């Protein structure tokens, strides 16, 4: 497995299309999230020139996981769409805080099936650690996620220091929440 990361302009040719197609397969086809899809790719207003993507590619060349990093000094998912997940706290706008979203490591070659399948295969730990490291390289001291609640269990299993920002809410039948992750804490 190998990690590919960077903003759109720095990704190898074709990888932006591949990661957004992978997101469509995971979040729309498999998880049933109601997201914008164009030409088989899932994108939204937060896929910008400054957005950083982290991908895991398996030995056969398939995308096996993805994550998206956004600076909180610019509009981000939590600040614009789900500020209520912060339990009354104003959304951070701080160069040392980055948002982690669209995190998934779903193996389409394995038998599917648990509610944790989004996070269940061997690429998960590599992807999470790589996303944290990638954010740290860009000055992040903390990450804030908007994710299904299952990610909290994953983060704990990986030994990362994390705690939730508030109670989950139900969106499209799935419990999502915001979670703080300390960069450098336990990686």
């Amino acid at each position, binding site marked *: 497995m190998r990690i590919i990361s960077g903003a759109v302009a720095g990704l190898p040719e074709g990888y932006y299309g591949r990661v957004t197609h992978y997101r469509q397969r995971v979040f729309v086809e498999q998880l049933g999230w109601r997201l914008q899809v164009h030409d088989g790719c899932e994108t939204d207003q937060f896929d910008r020139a400054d957005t950083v993507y982290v991908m895991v590619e398996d030995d056969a060349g398939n995308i096996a996981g993805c994550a998206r990093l956004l600076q909180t000094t610019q509009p981000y998912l939590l600040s614009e769409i789900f500020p209520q997940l*912060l*339990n*009354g*706290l104003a959304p*951070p706008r701080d160069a040392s805080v980055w948002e982690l979203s669209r995190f998934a490591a779903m193996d389409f070659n394995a038998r599917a*099936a*648990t*509610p*944790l399948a989004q996070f*269940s295969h061997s690429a998960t730990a590599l992807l999470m650690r790589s996303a944290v490291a990638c954010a740290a390289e860009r000055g992040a001291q903390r990450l804030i996620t908007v994710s299904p*609640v299952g990610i*909290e*269990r994953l983060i*704990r299993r990986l030994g990362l*220091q994390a*705690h*939730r*920002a*508030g*109670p*989950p809410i*139900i969106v499209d039948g799935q*419990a999502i*929440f915001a979670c*703080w992750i300390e960069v450098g804490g336990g990686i």
Partner: protein
Amino acid sequence: MNSRGHWSSRGELASLAVSPDGYVRLTVAAFRAIRLAHLLSELDADANPPPSRASGACLASIKGYTEWTSQTRPALSLGWDWRIATGAGQVRYQRDGEVRSNVMLVDARRRDLGALATAVLLCAAIDILDWETAVDHFISNRYACNLSNLTVTENRSSL
């Protein structure tokens, strides 16, 4: 609701606030004064059922998680995993692992007890909370499956 905290007419505990790091800080006594309500529970699919040598029967592990919250502003949020334990002809829910929360417990001088001590104290508090009945009721209704035959054997008092 216990009134050891300072409750406003809107039901807010005056001393509660979200810190910039996202934690809600409060003392153990203040935490115990707050009633937690069941928010949701889910089953985990059993991807790896344990092997069974019994013929005609298979003992599958049943696990899940549960989420609880307070009616305070800001809200306290606690979640933990559970599993259904069997033994001696009885079936009951057991907490499985530590509590995940947005709570940081502090001492009387408002100093953090730390994540580890907070987790230990929250686990102790959860273990005297009658959460099993609410989870069983929610899971039984949501999944309408054989869990409806479960009986919760421990009769515990709520926080």
